[in-house]
C-alpha cells in the first residue's frame, strides 16, 4: 500500500485563495468578485495585490453572477466567490441563463460546501449543489479534496475556456496530494491505491476518509482500489471502468446527497457499461444540522468507519 503523509492540516478554501493569488500574478485576465465574504474565501491577498481587478458586490449574489458573465465580454476571466449555498441554489437561474446557456468563461468559487461547514447548520450546508451544477450543459464540476488540490484546481480552471463550478470547504483537513500543480488535470481521476476486492471512489473531504478506510480494510485482508475523482463532470469514465473490471464492486463517497451527486454519475457509467453492485457514502436525502465537522461526518456516516462498513457490505453483494 502507498503511504500518504498529511503535511499539516489546512482548509481547502485557503488553497483557493493561494491559487487565486498565484493567478493574479501570472494571468492579467483573471479578475475576482465576492459577495461580502472576502475573509471566508481567503481572497484578501489577491485584492491587496490587484485592487482594481476585484469587485465587491455586497450581499447580492445574483448581481455578482451577472456581472461575472458581463466581465467575460471584454476578455476577463472572473472568479466569483461566495458560500456554496449562495453560489448555486440562490442564483441557479442566473447561472443557467447568463453563464451556462450563454457559454461564458465564469469560474464559480463555492466555499463552505456540505456538512463540514458545521455549526452554522442546515441553512448554509448545501448538499445539493453538485447535482444542480452537473445538470447544466457545458458546466465543469470540480470538488477537490485538500489544500494542494484546491490550489491546483483553481489554477487549472483559468486555463480552460468555459464555466467551472469549483467546490471547496471550510474545515482544516489533511493535506496529502501533490504540491506540483501540473499533476492536476481536469477530468482525470487519480489512482491513490491499487486493489482487487473493492473500488472506493471518493471526492472532496471524503477522499482522506477513504484512504483511512482502505488501510483498515487492508489490515483485515481486504484489498481496496482507491480512486480520487476530483472532476465530477466531465467524469473520468475510463479510470472507473478499469477499476471495477478488477474489483467487481464499488463504494462511492461524497459529502453530498446521494441524489444528484458523484454516486449517481458513477452509477450511470456502470449501468451503461458494466452493471456493478454499488454502495453510496452520501447524505440520505436529508438536510444537515449544527455540530462540529467531525461530529457531522460521523453522524451522517460519511467518515472512514462508514466507508469501511459499506465496503464490506458491497463485497458481500458480489
Amino acid at each position, binding site marked *: 500500500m502507498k503511504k500518504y503523509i498529511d503535511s499539516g492540516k489546512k482548509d481547502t478554501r485557503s488553497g483557493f485563495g493561494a491559487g487565486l493569488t498565484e493567478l493574479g500574478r501570472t494571468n492579467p485576465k483573471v*479578475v475576482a468578485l465576492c459577495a461580502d465574504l472576502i475573509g471566508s474565501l481567503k481572497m484578501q491577498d489577491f485584492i491587496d495585490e490587484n485592487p*482594481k*481587478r476585484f*469587485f465587491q*458586490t*455586497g450581499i*447580492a449574489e*445574483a*448581481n*455578482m*453572477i*451577472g*456581472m*461575472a*458573465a*458581463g*466581465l*467575460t*465580454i*471584454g*476578455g*476577463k476571466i*472572473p472568479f466569483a466567490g461566495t458560500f456554496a449555498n449562495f453560489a448555486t441554489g440562490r442564483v441557479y*437561474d*442566473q447561472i*443557467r*441563463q*447568463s453563464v451556462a*446557456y*450563454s*457559454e*461564458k468563461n465564469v469560474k464559480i468559487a463555492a466555499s463552505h460546501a456540505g456538512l463540514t461547514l458545521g455549526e452554522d447548520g442546515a441553512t448554509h450546508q448545501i448538499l445539493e449543489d453538485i447535482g444542480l451544477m452537473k445538470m447544466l450543459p457545458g458546466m465543469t464540476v470540480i470538488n477537490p479534496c485538500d489544500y494542494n488540490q484546491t490550489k491546483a484546481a483553481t489554477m487549472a480552471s483559468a486555463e480552460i475556456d468555459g464555466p467551472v463550478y469549483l467546490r471547496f470547504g471550510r474545515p482544516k483537513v489533511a493535506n496529502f496530494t501533490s504540491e506540483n500543480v501540473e499533476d492536476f488535470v481536469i477530468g482525470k481521476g487519480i489512482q491513490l491505491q491499487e486493489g482487487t476486492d473493492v473500488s472506493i471512489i471518493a471526492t472532496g473531504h471524503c477522499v482522506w476518509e477513504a484512504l483511512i478506510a482502505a488501510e483498515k480494510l487492508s489490515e483485515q485482508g481486504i484489498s481496496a482500489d482507491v480512486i480520487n475523482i476530483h472532476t465530477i463532470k466531465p467524469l473520468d469514465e475510463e479510470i472507473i471502468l478499469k477499476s471495477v473490471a478488477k474489483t467487481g464492486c464499488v463504494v462511492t463517497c461524497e459529502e453530498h446527497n446521494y441524489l444528484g451527486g458523484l454516486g449517481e454519475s458513477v452509477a450511470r457509467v456502470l449501468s451503461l457499461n458494466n452493471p456493478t453492485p454499488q454502495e453510496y457514502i452520501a447524505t440520505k436525502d436529508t438536510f444537515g444540522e449544527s455540530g462540529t465537522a467531525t461530529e457531522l461526518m460521523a453522524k451522517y456516516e460519511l467518515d472512514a468507519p462508514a466507508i469501511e462498513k459499506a465496503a464490506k457490505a458491497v463485497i458481500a453483494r458480489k
Partner: protein
Amino acid sequence: MADINQLKDFATQVRRDILRQVHAVNSGHPGGSLGCTEFLVALYQEIMNRKEGFDMDGIGEDVFYLSNGHISPVIYSVLARSGYFPVEELATFRKLGTRLQGHPSTHDGLPGIRIASGSLGQGLSVALGTAQAKKLNNDDNLVFTLHGDGELQEGQIWEAVMYAAANKVDNVIATVDYNGQQIDGSTEEVCSLGDLKAKFEAFDWDVVEVKEGNDLEAIIAGLNEAKSKTGKGKPVCILLHTMMGNGVDFMMHTHAWHGKAPSDEQLENALSQNPATLGDY
C-alpha cells in the same frame, strides 16, 4: 445625423419584419417589439459606436444588451438590417434549427447577440460587468441596455441599480421601456412601480425622461442627453415612455398583444398601415 426620413423608413420596415416574423410561426411578442422599434433603430443607426463585423468581446465599440429578451423580433430585425446577418434569415424565426431562437441566445452563434436573455432581470448586471471590463481595458465606449418596466419587479435589477451607483459605473446607459403594461394587465394593477424617476434618483442615478418614446427625434435627443451625462460619476437611466404595439392601431392602448400573433387578416391590416420601405425579406 442620418436623414430623419430614412430612419423613419427603416423603422417602418422593422415593424413589417416584426409582424411577419410573429405571424409566420403564430407565436412571439409583437406588442413590446413594436413599442421599442424607434428606440432600437435610433440606437443602432444613429447613436452607437459600432465596429465592422462582430466579435464577442466588444472591445473598442459600444455594446448593447436586450434584457427583456421576449422582444426578440425587433432586435433580430434591427440587427439584420444593420448588417449583422442576412435579412432572409428573419424567415427562420422560432423555427427548428434557427439561430433566431424565441428568446435571444449566443448558443447558435448569431452575430450581434452577446448574452442570452428571456428570464428577466439579468441584463443590467451583465452590463455592469462589461462596463467594469471596459474601464479595466481603458475602453471609453459605452454599454447600453433595454429593460421592460414590468421587468423592474425582479429583485436582481435593484441589486444592480444599487451596485452601479455605489461603484460609480458611469459608462452605462440603462433604458426602461416605460409602457405601463405587462402580461396580466397594467403595471399599476399588477404591482405598481410607483414613482420610477424618484426611485432611480434616490438610488443616485442620473435620469433622462423621454416623453415621446416613439418619436425618433425625441429619442435621439434623449440618448444624446444621456450620453452627455456619462463619465461623470453616476450611472444613467432613460425612462422611455412608449406605446405598446405602436404603429398598428388595433395593437395600441392594450396589453393584449404582449405575446400573441396576428391572424392572416390582422396581418394584412397591420401591414397596410406600414407599407414596405426597404423591401421585405
